[in-house]
């Protein structure tokens, strides 16, 4: 049988084609599968990337604009304290190649850096702080040096733009931004409240008034060669403090440790016997108890009285001090007359009245530098002497509050430096007593009064100042009894008959000023009163800007309207 070769060939061809086709199909399947797998992988990756949120955001912005402590501003919005960015210069040991050349560069650019200290620290520490709180020029020097081992470390710094002005009130913070004194310490928690960092704390203080009082007190210290001075200006009806100055003081931006006693706050921390200013309270108590009247006469007053063995003398006694009305006892500042009033009022009533004025309580104010006055055991003699402010001590702040209650209609306000704090006050004397006291205190300052009052040097025309002086010897620091040094006070208010402002001025250890008075007397009438007058003259126009009542009282108003 003959084979059909052609058919075979054809069959072979078909067979070969089928094989090749299968082979091709297999290969194309592999390629397509590979493509599909790659496509699926890419697609899946794309899906994942599509759902991934953060990968493309190159940095999440978590920077905070506000610093760790809130700003503090005065009642006019002027900045008193603020945190800002600051830089420290540090030396990083592991980046140092040649320590000597670096130290030479540091010495040339930052002469205040103590190289010997750096050398000793270099042996033990990895990071050495060379200089804190760099100035802008120092910052630029570090940048231009370009030394890798010299680094800038960013931190926060508290700045007090008004320098000395509020240093006793605001206090200070440490390098970790914690309050360590003054308002900064008392209000630390509120100042660091993270939810309120953008909201400044508003104080009742006024920078312009603070400056004027600061300036006048500084001049007063020079004029009377005093060791220090202090003043408080308070709103009589609210207890809000407008100004509180204690001298000497320090720049709040200066980070030095203060140890000297003279820098203690003379307004809230130092305790003083405040002298005859207390006669105001003695008389107010007796009038309020309806024991005496303004014109009641005390006759046959002696030069000296005895309490047991102890003599109590009249100050500068003359015949004119023999028969005195209540007003004259205040104006002539009669110690013996005051004792007679206490006898008439009753010792217990007098003691209770002083306690009711919170003279012996811990003062309340938003600062930490406060002192609790020592409460005496009441005896007969110290009750008598307390009538003219001897034998009892308190702070200038407590005196200012008590004085506010006498002149404002009879309500004792709580002192505060916070503008928006709640006003708290309670009645201590009647309105009528307050009005009578104001009239008598005006008589002590009025230049037209024939009985020349000790406060007449503060009778600034147009402000109708009222007030009472006090001169007290300071207790000796070395031995028992009193020293020769004195402290003088003038507690004043204006304008009469409805005072809105209480101003108390204290001069510590003053001397006579013959260049002003042509004599060397050093009682309060010749220094504290004079300074208070100058202060009222200067601050009056500033206070009147937002106070139409005060404007109407001024002489200029009646002249031009």
């Amino acid at each position, binding site marked *: 049988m003959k084979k059909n070769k052609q058919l075979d060939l054809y069959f072979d061809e078909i067979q070969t084609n089928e094989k090749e086709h299968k082979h091709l199909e297999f290969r194309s399947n592999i390629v397509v599968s590979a493509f599909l797998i790659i496509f699926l992988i890419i697609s899946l990756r794309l899906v994942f990337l599509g759902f991934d949120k953060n990968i493309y955001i190159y940095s999440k*912005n978590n920077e905070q604009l506000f610093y760790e402590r809130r700003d503090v501003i005065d009642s006019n919005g002027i900045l008193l304290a603020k945190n800002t960015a600051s830089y420290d210069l540090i030396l990083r040991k592991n980046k140092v190649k040649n320590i000597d050349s670096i130290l030479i560069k540091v010495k040339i650019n930052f002469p205040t850096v103590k190289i010997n200290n750096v050398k000793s620290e270099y042996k033990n520490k990895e990071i050495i702080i060379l200089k804190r709180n760099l100035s802008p020029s120092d910052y630029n020097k570090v940048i231009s040096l370009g030394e890798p081992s010299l680094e800038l470390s960013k931190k926060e710094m508290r700045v007090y733009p008004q320098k000395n002005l509020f240093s006793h009130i605001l206090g200070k913070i440490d390098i970790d931004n914690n309050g360590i004194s003054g308002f900064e310490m008392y209000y630390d928690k509120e100042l660091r409240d993270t939810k309120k960092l953008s909201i400044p704390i508003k104080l009742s203080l006024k920078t312009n008034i603070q400056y004027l009082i600061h300036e006048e007190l500084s001049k007063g210290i020079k004029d009377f060669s005093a060791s220090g001075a202090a003043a408080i200006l308070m709103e009589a009806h609210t207890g809000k403090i407008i100004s509180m100055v204690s001298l000497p003081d320090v720049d709040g931006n200066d980070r030095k440790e203060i140890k000297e006693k003279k820098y203690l706050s003379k307004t809230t921390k130092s305790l003083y016997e405040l002298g005859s200013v207390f006669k105001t309270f003695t008389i107010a108590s007796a009038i309020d108890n309806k024991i005496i009247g303004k014109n009641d006469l005390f006759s046959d007053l002696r030069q000296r009285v005895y309490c047991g063995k102890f003599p109590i003398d009249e100050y500068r006694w003359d015949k004119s001090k023999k028969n005195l009305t209540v007003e004259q006892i205040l104006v002539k500042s009669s110690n013996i007359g005051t004792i007679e009033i206490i006898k008439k009022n009753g010792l217990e009533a007098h003691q209770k009245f002083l306690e009711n004025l919170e003279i012996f309580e811990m003062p309340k104010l938003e600062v930490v530098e406060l002192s609790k006055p020592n409460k005496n055991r009441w005896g007969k003699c110290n009750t008598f002497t307390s009538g003219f402010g001897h034998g009892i001590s308190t702070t200038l702040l407590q005196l200012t509050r008590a004085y506010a209650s006498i002149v404002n209609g009879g309500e004792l306000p709580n002192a505060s430096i916070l503008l928006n704090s709640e006003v708290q006050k309670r009645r201590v004397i009647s309105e009528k007593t307050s009005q009578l006291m104001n009239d008598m205190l005006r008589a002590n300052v009025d230049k037209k009064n024939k009985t020349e009052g000790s406060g007449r040097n503060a009778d600034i025309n147009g402000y109708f100042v009222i007030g009472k002086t006090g001169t007290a010897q300071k207790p000796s620091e070395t031995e028992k009894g009193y020293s020769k040094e004195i402290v003088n006070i003038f507690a004043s208010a204006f304008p009469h008959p409805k005072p809105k402002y209480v101003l108390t001025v204290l001069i510590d250890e003053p001397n006579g000023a013959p260049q002003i008075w042509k004599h060397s007397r050093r009682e309060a009438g010749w220094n504290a009163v004079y300074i208070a007058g100058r202060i009222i003259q200067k601050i009056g126009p500033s206070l009147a800007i937002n106070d139409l009542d005060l404007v109407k009282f001024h002489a200029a108003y009646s002249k031009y309207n």
Partner: protein
Amino acid sequence: MFKKYFISFFILFLGLASVHFLKNKTREIEIKTEKISKNIIFMQENIEVQKIEYGFLASPERISNLAKKYLSNDYIFLTSEYIKLNEKK
């Protein structure tokens, strides 16, 4: 059959491409926002520093010193009238 797959893949691919287009655009906007936010913070920080500087420059002590240095005594005309009123006995 192939047509169905092709359409499905095409829609899937188109969807993915759209997502990524939007994603890229969002990223660009986010970068711009980020830069603007940083600029705002930088400017605000500058304002805070300026506030401190203003506090120093406008302090009563400095103004008083400048007034003493550059202003004549009769510059504030009200002062003389005011002194007269206060000295009136």
